[in-house]
């Protein structure tokens, strides 16, 4: 069977194919070009034969003549079969190929020579490989690489070819023009700024963190829930973010338990269900202790925790068919949805996939980093409340403590509040040092 090779990836395609089966490159133009070349080739060979006095001496299998590699350079790798007409894949390719340059106005020429972006099966924008030279009539000069010492080139190649290593951060990040401050000193300062106060309980004038808009709204929504309300919980964090999110989620879960809400938890992360179970258990113990309840009386309601793989699209399934995700008991329409998300995308996924389907008010409990990105959703009313970071946790806990005086603030949250000051002070220091170094070391970057 005759085949046509793709000029982009080298795949053999059936003759007459319009596009490459592997990468989607248009083949018709390539095939026509190949046919033209086939027609021209015999004529050229005849002309060459007529012009030359005799054939050049060919290397025979008995006398192989391997190319000597240049000193200091590795031997040139063998070109893969089928890639002979793909100059852009050769090591020595300097940015131009034999394909004619695009004419901005001529779409047909573009279509004939366009090569498609790799990795996305050529379905998005075409990648322009050929470039127009400055002087159209003259052959384009190969761009010269700057004169870089061989040792530096070797270092660059080694770094580009190896995975980044955290421990060598100082060397990797230090550019020649950057001020000479060793980053490990900053690392050490940050580590000690947290470690020493935590270890030695160093005192610091302590204020209350700011209460950002959205926390009180979240509190009011939960406070307004009827008894035995159905609450759908999307647990979108795992141990990686538990250090921050546990403190923010704890007062909210305590509040839900105090309102006798019936929670059903779903998570798309493998580590999500275990994290959820641990935090809910912790909240339950705290709440029982604060209200002097016996464990037996209030543990009757088992909170189902489901793990669903498949990505954000499955949240639509949770909203549309809760009976197929949970047991029959969770069939009623939820009164509230709470998203505990490490990233803004987690909350966005719920608002995009589930909220338009079940039309349930949503409260987001997120990391501090997600807060600014979620503000538009809170402003548009898609989020009924927003609790974020250690400061959101502190504010919510304070609101809750007013209603439940016996409830104690978690020790971990107290330490967060104190140690944040130390850590943020080091951040200020780093910013000041960076600016001073830039000011005194060299002119500012353009």
């Amino acid at each position, binding site marked *: 069977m005759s085949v046509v090779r793709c000029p982009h990836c080298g795949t053999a395609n059936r003759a007459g194919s319009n596009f490459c089966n592997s990468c989607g490159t248009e083949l018709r133009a390539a095939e026509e070009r190949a046919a033209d070349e086939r027609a021209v080739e015999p004529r050229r060979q005849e002309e060459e034969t007529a012009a030359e006095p005799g054939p050049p001496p060919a290397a025979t299998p008995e006398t192989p003549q391997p190319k000597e590699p240049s000193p200091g350079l590795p031997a040139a790798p063998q070109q893969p079969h089928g890639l002979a007409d793909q100059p852009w894949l050769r090591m020595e390719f300097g940015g131009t190929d034999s394909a004619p340059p695009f004419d901005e106005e001529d779409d047909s020429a573009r279509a004939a020579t366009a090569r498609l972006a790799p990795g996305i099966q050529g379905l998005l924008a075409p990648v322009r490989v050929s470039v127009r030279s400055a002087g159209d009539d003259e052959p384009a000069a190969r761009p010269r690489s700057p004169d870089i010492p061989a040792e530096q080139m070797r270092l660059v190649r080694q770094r580009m070819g190896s995975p980044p290593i955290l421990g060598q951060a100082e060397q990797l990040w230090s550019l020649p023009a950057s001020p000479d401050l060793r980053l490990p000193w900053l*690392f050490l300062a940050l580590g000690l700024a947290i470690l020493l106060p935590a270890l030695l309980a160093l005192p610091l004038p302590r204020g209350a963190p700011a209460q950002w808009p959205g926390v009180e709204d979240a509190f009011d929504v939960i406070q307004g829930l009827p008894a035995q309300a159905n609450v759908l919980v999307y647990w979108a964090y795992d141990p990686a973010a538990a250090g921050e999110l546990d403190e923010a989620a704890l007062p909210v879960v305590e509040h839900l338990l105090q309102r006798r809400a019936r929670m059903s938890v779903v998570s798309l992360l493998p580590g999500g269900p275990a994290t959820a179970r641990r935090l809910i258990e912790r909240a339950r113990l705290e709440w029982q202790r604060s209200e002097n309840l016996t464990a037996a009386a209030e543990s009757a309601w088992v909170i189902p925790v489901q793990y669903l793989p498949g990505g954000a699209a499955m949240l639509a399934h949770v909203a549309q068919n809760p009976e197929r995700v949970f047991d029959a008991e969770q069939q009623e329409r939820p009164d509230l949805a709470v998203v505990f998300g490490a990233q803004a995308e987690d909350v966005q996924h719920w608002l995009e996939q589930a909220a338009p389907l079940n039309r349930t008010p949503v409260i987001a409990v997120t990391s501090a980093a997600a807060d600014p990105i979620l*503000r538009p959703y809170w402003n548009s009313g898609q989020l009924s409340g927003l609790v974020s970071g250690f400061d959101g946790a502190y504010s919510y806990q304070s609101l809750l403590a007013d209603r439940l005086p016996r409830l104690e603030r978690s020790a971990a949250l107290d330490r967060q509040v104190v140690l944040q000051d130390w850590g943020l002070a080091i951040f200020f220091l*780093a910013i000041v040092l960076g600016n001073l170094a830039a000011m005194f070391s060299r002119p500012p970057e353009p």
Partner: protein
Amino acid sequence: MHTDRSASANYLVIALLVSVSLIIVLDRTGIASSLQPITGTLYAWGILLAAFSLLLGVFNAGWVHLQRIFLGETNWPHSVALVAALVVVLASGLLSPFGAESSLTEWLFDAIIAPGQATLFALLAFFMIAAAYRLLRVGRNGGGWMLAGALLMLTAQAPAAGVWMSPGLTRFAGWTLDVPVMATLRGALMGGSLALTLIAIRYMFMTK
């Protein structure tokens, strides 16, 4: 999956992709609510197939490291540790009737997985301070504006600011977060959603 495949098979795959997408789209618009049982079934299949894909991914990772061990490649002892950890957790979860809630699996989760993941993410604080030192500079392009935003929020969110700073600063930071930053990020969100929608439609219909 394979380079040498017929065009008709390609069309079949694309037809399936487009029709599944259209069913979901029609159901979500509410135009054809009778499609809901079909979408429900599709989602249920999606959950199952994603679980099998996950298993395939785990198998792939294990296979790669087993090959490293058998071929004696660089760092093969680390691959031994990886495969051993994988096998121990897998055995503890699959052999126990309690699955992931068995005491050994829970112990492994609390002793290895949770602290490991938490510590890896805690390291990001050091990257952040490196970025604060290198990037938040007045002289950089846009650095002054970024620095202003960062300093305002760093100050306002510090708990000690409540003691040392005027309450007006916190109020101003709250207003910045709620008005200009919110408005800007709304534009960015809309731009991102628009781009995502266009890319998805292009992907479905393969327009150039």
